[in-house]
């Protein structure tokens, strides 16, 4: 009994004390390496995306460090695995805040970035993400920046080309219900609606589906002029292949995945021929700057570059440029500096708006022999 009393008294005393908390801010060290965190899925379903992003970022930081770093200071880039799980993402957001990282690059999955954004905002850590979800822009977080256009831009450009320029009216949709696929689906559907076009078919599949014959057979009954695919690279390829095997003649159109070599080889070159792509990064040969980047990437990793690595590279370079402007300082200053960056990057000209979106247009390309050529040139 006496023990209980003592314990109660002790607890009461404790309650009266100041609440716990992290004392003092981690602050910005004026010397030593600048710590940047790269958070990406290295395991789980979306790890291939995460690994590409990481390679792009690493290449950029390596070049910067080789050239003397930022105002004489080296950049220390550390990789963290979010496992594609938002809960793990929030843990990592607090971890990098606690360990004194002043900036973050990643993640490739919008859901994880969405979960981390409020914490990074509170910690004043600017984040350049590879996510493309319109929801990222809707957050209007002053510390969140996208290194690519949102799905809305991809699909608005595509719809404009297909409906306004080419005059197609009978359009069928097939998309998966994952984060990327459903984003594409919604954005493209909105763009069609503003043009008063109702799709003749709207099929939804799951991200791990491999056989689409039932969905495509339904689409074939409508005999569409255009088949819009909202899915990742391999699945897009499979859909295109099975569509052609069923005798579907429609023009295939879609976002960035349609422009990749993975899509073309999965579909088969003849099946992919003539597919229409909306992407800020049409191919590794699109410009001299891109050619030089693709060559560098090939020497470094012995694999072909793609949009995912290019935009991660762009994002890292924008971060470095902003750090140069602040002299290695983070926080609000760094966020303002990122917003002020005007960079002619691999994906186009970056000018950030209040939504954190830097690129506002995509280009239309056509697949020829498994390579994308700009539409104007065809």
């Amino acid at each position, binding site marked *: 009994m006496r*023990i*209980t009393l003592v*314990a109660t008294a*002790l*607890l009461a005393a*404790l309650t009266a004390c100041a*609440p*716990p*908390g*992290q004392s003092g801010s981690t602050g910005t060290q004026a010397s030593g390496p600048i710590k940047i965190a790269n958070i990406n899925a*290295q*395991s789980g379903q979306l790890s291939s995306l995460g690994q590409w992003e990481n390679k792009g970022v690493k290449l950029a930081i390596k070049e910067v460090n080789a050239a003397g770093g930022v105002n004489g200071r080296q950049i220390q880039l550390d990789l*963290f*695995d979010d*496992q*594609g*799980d*938002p*809960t*793990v993402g*929030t*843990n*990592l957001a*607090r*971890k990098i*805040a*606690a*360990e004194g990282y002043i900036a973050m690059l990643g993640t490739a999955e*919008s*859901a994880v970035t*969405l*979960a981390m*954004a*409020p914490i990074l905002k*509170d910690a004043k850590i600017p984040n350049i993400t590879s996510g493309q*979800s319109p*929801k990222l822009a809707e*957050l209007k977080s002053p510390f969140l920046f996208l290194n690519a256009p949102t799905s809305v831009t991809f699909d608005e450009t595509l719809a404009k080309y297909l409906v306004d320029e080419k005059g197609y009216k009978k359009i069928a949709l097939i998309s998966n*219900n*994952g*984060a990327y696929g*459903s*984003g594409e689906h919604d954005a493209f559907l909105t763009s069609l609606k503003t043009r008063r076009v109702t799709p003749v078919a709207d099929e*939804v599949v799951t991200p791990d589906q491999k056989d689409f014959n039932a969905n495509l057979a339904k689409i074939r009954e409508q005999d569409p002029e255009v088949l819009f695919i909202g899915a990742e690279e391999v699945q897009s390829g499979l859909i295109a292949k099975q569509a052609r095997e069923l005798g579907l003649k429609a023009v295939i159109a879609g976002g960035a995945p349609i422009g990749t070599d993975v899509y073309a080889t999965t579909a088969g070159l003849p099946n992919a021929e003539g597919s229409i792509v909306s992407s800020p990064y049409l191919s590794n040969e699109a410009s001299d700057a891109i050619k030089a980047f693709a060559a560098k990437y090939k020497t470094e990793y012995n694999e072909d570059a793609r949009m995912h690595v290019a935009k991660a590279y762009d994002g890292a370079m924008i971060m470095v440029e902003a750090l140069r402007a602040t002299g290695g300082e983070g926080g609000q200053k760094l966020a303002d500096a990122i917003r002020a960056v005007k960079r002619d990057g691999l994906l186009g000209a970056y000018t950030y708006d209040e939504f954190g979106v830097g690129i506002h247009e995509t280009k239309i390309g056509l697949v020829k022999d498994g390579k994308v050529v700009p539409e104007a040139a065809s």
Partner: protein
Amino acid sequence: MRWLLGIAAFAAAWLLPYALGGYSMHVVDVAIIFAVLAIGLGLTMGVAGQINLAQVAFFGVGAYAVAILTTGAGLGFWTASVLALVAAVVAGLLAGIPALRMQSHYLGIVTLGLALAFINWVTNAHVAGRAEGISDIPVPPMFGIDLSSAYLFYYVELIVFVVFLALALFVTHSPLGRRLRAMRDDDLAAGALGAEIPLLRMTAFVLSGLYGGVAGVLYAGLIRFVAPETFSIGNMFLLLAMVIIGGRSSIVGCVVGALALAFVREALLDVSAFAQLGYGVIVVLVVVFFPKGLAGLLSRRKAGGRARLGPFQEYGTAAADEGTVLEVEGVTKRFRGLVALEDITLSVPAGQIRGIVGPNGSGKTTLFNVVSGFYSPTRGRVRLHGRDVTNLAPYRLSLRGVARTFQNLRLFEDLSVRENVLLGLDRTRTAWIWRYLATPWAVARYSRGLNRSAEEIIARFGLQEVADAVPRALPYGIQRRVEIARAMAMSPSLLLLDEPAAGLNGEEVRQLAEIVRSIRGSGVTVVVIEHNMGLVMSLCDHVTVLSSGRVIADGPPDEVAVDPDVVAAYLGDSMAAPTESEVEHAEG
């Protein structure tokens, strides 16, 4: 001593944030949420034995309900939380419905299906934000305390956690928890002791839903974002691993397992691909080598190896009621083509010791199963004190005063002798459980009363030395005595004994006869199935002989023994009445 440990742990937990950095604090916050989930899973799976793989979905229902109600419907955080708890409990109820019809791995498959269906729904439904989830859940308001700080939120979590841990411990150690554990070990025997099995299974799932909902609300308040990945089957496995490693039948074990695995998971963040593999290996090793988990390593039950039975203390005599206690009228029981009982009619007057004898396979145990509600008769009626009780469930019959023992002993193996007796003593309906939340002190008082009565019964049956042992550690003769004590704890008016002398030695048989006579003397009517003819002859007032499902003789023992039909039925070709040893041999 236990209280002291608990208080010390709580004080340490209260001081903990002063020693932690911001990130570690967040990790601890997440770990506590998993601990709450693990308690819920421990209650359903470990204590009540319901394989429940939908716990992560209840968690999701709670978190998503808060998210949708605050961001979509504009409700305040705490209002939304209350509704979220209700939603999670309803989800628990719905998931529990299949458990009424199926058990073990079938139930596992069904609940897994429900969990997948939930993930599928949130990935596709616009209202749930689809694959991108729902962000911007408001910070829970709390009288000006800023709960967006992981440090201050920790205290909210700590208090909720302690309250729900206490509730779980209270439930496990209360009469309700005892019934849940009895149901896990043997649901038929639990039913015969008055446990309402369907309601208990629903209770287990409601608890599961409640704890899932609480964890979901805490998650929504802490992370302020929900997305489908958090409630994936992968995390369900992690949760399962926490409960199995910690020790599923111990609530504290579940908590320890959950905290330990949450921290290990954090430590292995950089090698997470291999960590998954690691959990798998650890779970397999634990299941194979330590089936009771970490908790099993710490607690070892006292073995009752050399324990002896004390003497039986006779009941005081009381006059039996007048009239007929049991009437069986034209009962027929068919199993597909096989006729087990055909047109059985018998009536047992109050205060009688009735013997039921007959060769193996003559339908004696089937008759008991019909009378005690395990089987519904194909035709015919059963009356108890003149009231029709045909087709009543075992627990209803038990509550009306029918107690029974089983031919092959159905003691609850993981419960001590005392707990077995307490189960018989507990005569409350499961509908009483609202008191566990509303007036726990009344439950505690009732529970103390039960304990006193249990001591009386244990003393009466001479079980003091073995009261804390588990039945399987005891010699067969003692187990038989425990089963009778458990049946008598129910204060029955009709006691059905199914071969109570099987496996007993001569001295034990003599004691048994003494006990049964004393039971009858206290006003209880006894029906006994027995092969031991010596015992039947000396003990029973009246004997009914069954053969091939029919009554072939009915009368005082000495008349029945010389009935030519009985002799023929028993012996077929040979010409002598069976001796005790022959019968036992035939049964072996």
